[in-house]
């Protein structure tokens, strides 16, 4: 069982979350101009990375918010958690050492004083530097 640190709620069991597939798959600028093959590739073709993989998650039984996660598909180590819409943190470890809750939204509470500290563990982006993650296809 993964222990996932939701940017709003803190660490919760994996069963509270839903997986949303690969992150940073941009909607085509002009879908009408795509060939059938290009459209099919946009819809169905995803990276099958061995190593650090950026993916979307939804805290479905908690705050019901989406967020992105950088996870190692081999070790399952959660390397970073960052808000939707923000660029993928450099896998070499340029993530801010901000307890993994890199939320910038005004009302998206990070683990501040108002938030109960229910975290047994929290993902530590600081450990990224120690991991020479094999980098697959970087979008």
């Amino acid at each position, binding site marked *: 069982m993964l222990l996932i640190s939701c940017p709003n709620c803190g660490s919760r069991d994996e069963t509270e979350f839903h997986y949303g597939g690969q992150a940073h798959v941009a909607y085509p600028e002009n879908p009408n101009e795509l060939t059938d093959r290009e459209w099919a590739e946009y819809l169905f073709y995803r990276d099958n990375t061995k190593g650090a993989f950026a993916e979307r998650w939804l805290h479905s039984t908690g705050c019901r*918010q989406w967020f992105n996660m950088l996870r190692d598909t081999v070790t399952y180590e959660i390397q970073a958690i960052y808000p939707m819409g923000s660029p993928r943190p450099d896998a070499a470890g340029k993530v801010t050492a901000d307890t993994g809750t890199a939320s910038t939204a005004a009302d998206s*509470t990070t683990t501040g004083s108002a*938030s109960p500290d229910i975290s047994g563990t929290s993902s530590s982006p600081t450990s990224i530097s120690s991991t020479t993650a094999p980098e697959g296809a970087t979008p």
Partner: protein
Amino acid sequence: MAETAAPANSAQKNLSLRVSPAAPLGAAFEAGSVRGVVELREVPFLTMVGLRVNRNSGAGQRVASVTGGLPAGCGSVSGTGDTSVLWLGPEEFLVVAPTEAHESLGGDLIQALREALGGDAGQVVDLSANRTTFELSGPRARAVLEKGCSLDLHPSVLQAGTALSTEIGNIPAVLWKTGDESFRIFPRASFADFLGRWLLDAMREYASPEVP
């Protein structure tokens, strides 16, 4: 479904026809409760309102003045008097109020919230029939919940007056710690029977003398 518009003679409606989601388990709750150890009962027909509003916006401040504040972050609960507001998400809140606050019984809470929101972005939705309320209390209440909830429920971590949306017995529910030894659990109506029976099963061992 809850009433969406109050009939003219709402006060004269025959309330005895209402059936709460866990009403069939009422006798079982009574029999399964262990006095002074762990007790379970349903608190039926509480008024609940789903709020979606940015609490920093003008509408959010107007709504907050009706409810007595909007909670700031995960776990926090605000409100005045009988009305409480539980944090469900960054812009999503659940207002819990007594039965009488419902507009079908002459209450004006929902209408006041609608007027406070006005035409701004957000939602005020009557969710009174969406969830029911279980009240689990007693010195063993925490032990019962710990059988099916992975949150740290130890009083040094989870303080009274905290409400968290999580999973209990594998179903999604909102858990609100109302006192040192009392919890309110809000399961969806369709899960009420399952969670009621699950809690009764989890409580059963405390009816027997403790095995040394």
